[in-house]
């Protein structure tokens, strides 16, 4: 099918509710889009300037232990890099991609080249203007591997005038703007690859003043911020608060907000005068099952039995107090995705037992242990429910807790490139990125899933992301999900929501399904 660029723009616009990329593809609409991020939020409010937001964070950057250079966005204290930096795009709470430092994005007819217009007059914290040279330098740096999606998808980038860049992709990608919204894909001041980003200078709403890599940071308002409205706060401080430090700090009045609170402590935060906010979704736990060694779950029947036996609704009920929440569908798709397809059967222990018997394990089976690290406060309470519900079907599975610092090197140190059986953290993203996590570019989570069905799954994604028509794309994504549900390459528990708490006088602070996409421009404090 041959589609012109004009036709594509028309299709994309008509499919805005599905992928909502239309405004990105139309520069005249795009220019107005980003300021709306703030304008929409403060509508009918009278924001006040001033005050200090001191937030606690229970979920540190997973890469924290790998560097002592915390002023770099890759090793930022938490993943909320948008306090100091901006990306070219941003994903809003409805999972729609929005323009950030980009003023427009337009693809070629074959979706392999994207022209990106840049916002003019955006200043870095040191007073220099952001131009295409900075953007090219940043993207080239991210292509070295720091941002896996950019490394995988981009072939090259070149300046296109002072306020524009042209990106060449390795293949057609209708959803490429989403990849530029990753938490590491921040725009940095031009520099060589060894030093870029280590100056802690961004274009974001707050200027970094002080950081202790493993503890806290302090940033003050950027008076020259490019958005029309905000930031309103004088200062933002973030501090890692694991264990009871979060609720203690909140009760003591030291913290006026906490991101990623323990859902079991919602009542305590509210008793302390806090307001809590749960996003529509959040980071999820994927059980990666390497299938290259002699494990029982190499047999698809065992994996199907596991998926049928796990009581995901019990997790939602007990851990998240959310009995009607969505449950994982054994892909990286998220309940907040419009393209999400539910598993046909939620839970069936008898069928799980029958599958085990068919696989030759009528007396039950013991599986290799799965390693996890307690990234989120409630996580250690999730796995006992999983293990108990598996045991009902005769499946013995142990979960081994490991420290989060160094967890990735630990799980990846052996059995390359698949690593140990582990739980992998999955942030919600657009369908192509989500589903691509089970393709050959990601051996650990795919875990040596091979065969004609796996090949078909991969080709469906390539076909989908090359599609101009969002509805056709959705149909292909649905087919891919059904294949994964039949094959069960790994298991998605699902249902988790990110939750934040804040003092009553803190306005507009919200938890975002994409943890790292939380923003601070529109947060203000009613004195």
């Amino acid at each position, binding site marked *: 099918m041959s589609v012109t660029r004009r036709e594509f723009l028309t299709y994309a616009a008509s499919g805005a509710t599905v992928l909502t990329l239309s405004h990105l593809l139309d520069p005249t609409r795009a220019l107005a889009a980003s300021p709306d991020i703030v304008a929409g939020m403060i509508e009918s409010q009278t924001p006040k300037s001033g005050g200090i937001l001191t937030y606690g964070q229970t979920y540190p950057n997973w890469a924290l232990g790998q560097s002592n250079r915390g002023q770099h966005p890759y090793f930022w204290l938490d993943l909320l890099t948008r306090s100091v930096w901006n990306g070219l795009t941003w994903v809003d709470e409805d999972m729609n991609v929005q323009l950030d430092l980009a003023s427009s994005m337009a693809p070629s007819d074959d979706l392999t080249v994207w022209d990106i217009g840049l916002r003019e007059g955006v200043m870095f914290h040191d007073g220099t203007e952001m131009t295409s040279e900075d953007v090219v330098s940043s993207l080239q740096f991210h292509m070295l591997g720091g941002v896996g999606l950019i490394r995988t998808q981009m072939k090259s980038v070149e300046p296109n005038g002072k306020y524009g860049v042209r990106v060449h992709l390795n293949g057609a990608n209708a959803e490429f703007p989403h990849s530029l919204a990753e938490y590491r894909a921040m725009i940095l001041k031009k520099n060589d690859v060894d030093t870029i980003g280590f100056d802690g200078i961004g274009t974001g709403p707050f200027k970094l003043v002080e950081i*202790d890599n493993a*503890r806290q940071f302090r940033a003050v308002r950027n008076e020259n911020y490019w958005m029309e409205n905000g930031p309103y706060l004088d200062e933002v401080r973030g501090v890692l608060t694991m264990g009871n430090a979060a609720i*203690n700090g909140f009760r*003591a009045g*030291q913290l006026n907000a906490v991101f990623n609170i323990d859902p079991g402590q919602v009542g305590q935060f509210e008793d302390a005068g806090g307001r809590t906010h749960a996003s529509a979704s959040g980071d999820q736990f994927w059980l990666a099952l390497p299938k290259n060694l002699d494990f029982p779950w190499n047999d698809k029947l065992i994996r199907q039995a596991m998926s049928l036996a796990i009581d995901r609704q019990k997790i939602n009920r007990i851990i998240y107090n959310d009995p009607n929440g969505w449950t994982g569908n054994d892909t990286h798709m998220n309940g907040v995705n419009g393209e999400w397809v539910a598993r046909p059967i939620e839970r069936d222990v008898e069928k799980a037992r029958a599958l085990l018997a068919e696989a030759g394990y009528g007396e039950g089976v013991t599986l290799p242990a799965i390693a996890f690290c307690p990234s989120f406060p409630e996580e250690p309470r999730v796995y006992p429910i999983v293990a108990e519900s598996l045991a009902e079907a005769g499946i013995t599975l142990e979960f081994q807790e490991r*420290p989060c*610092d160094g967890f990735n090197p630990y799980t990846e140190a*052996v059995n390359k490139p698949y690593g140990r059986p582990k739980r992998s953290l999955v942030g919600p993203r657009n369908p192509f990125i989500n589903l691509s996590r089970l393709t050959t570019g990601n051996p650990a989570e795919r875990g040596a899933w091979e065969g004609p069905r796996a090949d078909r799954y991969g080709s469906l994604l390539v076909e989908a992301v090359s599609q101009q028509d969002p509805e056709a794309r959705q149909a292909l994504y649905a087919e891919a999900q059904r294949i994964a549900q039949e094959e069960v390459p790994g298991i998605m528990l699902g249902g988790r929501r990110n939750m934040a708490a804040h003092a009553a006088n803190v306005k507009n602070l919200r938890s975002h399904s994409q943890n790292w996409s939380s923003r601070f421009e529109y947060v203000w404090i009613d004195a």
Partner: protein
Amino acid sequence: MYAVLALIVRRLLLSGVILVLVSGTVFIGTEILPGDALDATIPADELMYYSDDDLARMRAELGLDKSAAERFVNVFRGLVTFDFGVTLMTQESVIDSIIHPLLNSLIMASVAIVLTPLVSVVLGVWAALKPGGRIDGAVSGATLFAYSMPDFVVGNVFVIVFAIWLGLAPAVLMITESAPWYQILAVSVLPVLALTVSGVAYQFRLLRAGMVEALGSEFIERARLSGVPEWRLVITHALPAALVPMLNGTAQFVAGIISGVVVIEAVFKFPGIGIELIRSISQREVPTVQAITFLAAFAVIASNLLADISILALDPRVRRARNDR
């Protein structure tokens, strides 16, 4: 005098020997047992994930392909010259990565070490003035209760009472690792208090027992009959005699404070060496674990040496015993 000097020299030499043994123990604990460091991190049921090439590569990376003797010499030479090498993960100097936490913990521990005997002496003297009285009973009961409380419980209770209920101290220590000493000192109030609780309880009991014994002894009775005022009896005669067993307790407290620091720092999120030790153990940062363990042992040996010298200075009976030999 010669005998006392000889004793100090002997103690210094003995400390050197202990340091060598400590280095050996640290080496064995972190690199040798059970089998080698690689075996220690790989349970038998996990060996299926490793190919022979994996194991060989990891052994070479950890330097385990060299002989144990060769590795010990390297580790020992590094430890005794305070050259702790570089971290495995970030390849930065170990001493650079731990120097700020180390100094922060030293500040906190030093205050606790000074404060603990002072508070113990005040309470001990106060209680011993009237053994069996109401004050003695109250202080003895309170210290017995405090002594039985684990450090992490004391720390959490302090956070709830002083930070959350009374708002007198921060619940979360919001301070950078490299903050100046006076800022570290300012946020150390609650951790120091929590750290001193068990020490005060223990040392108080030693001092009180010593005071009661001294005040009931013949030499005090003679002094009392000769008209020496009671306060002078207590301060100048009974207290020095009662201090000797307490000083031994202080030396033990210094040894114990290192484990106490780990717990208290974890409760308060104090940017000190205890947090660093927990982090390096969880990251399997063997050079950092070796450095911290060695420095902790060094501190214990030094404090014991100091306590011995103090006892020599305070107690003429010990000096006489040495000279008589």
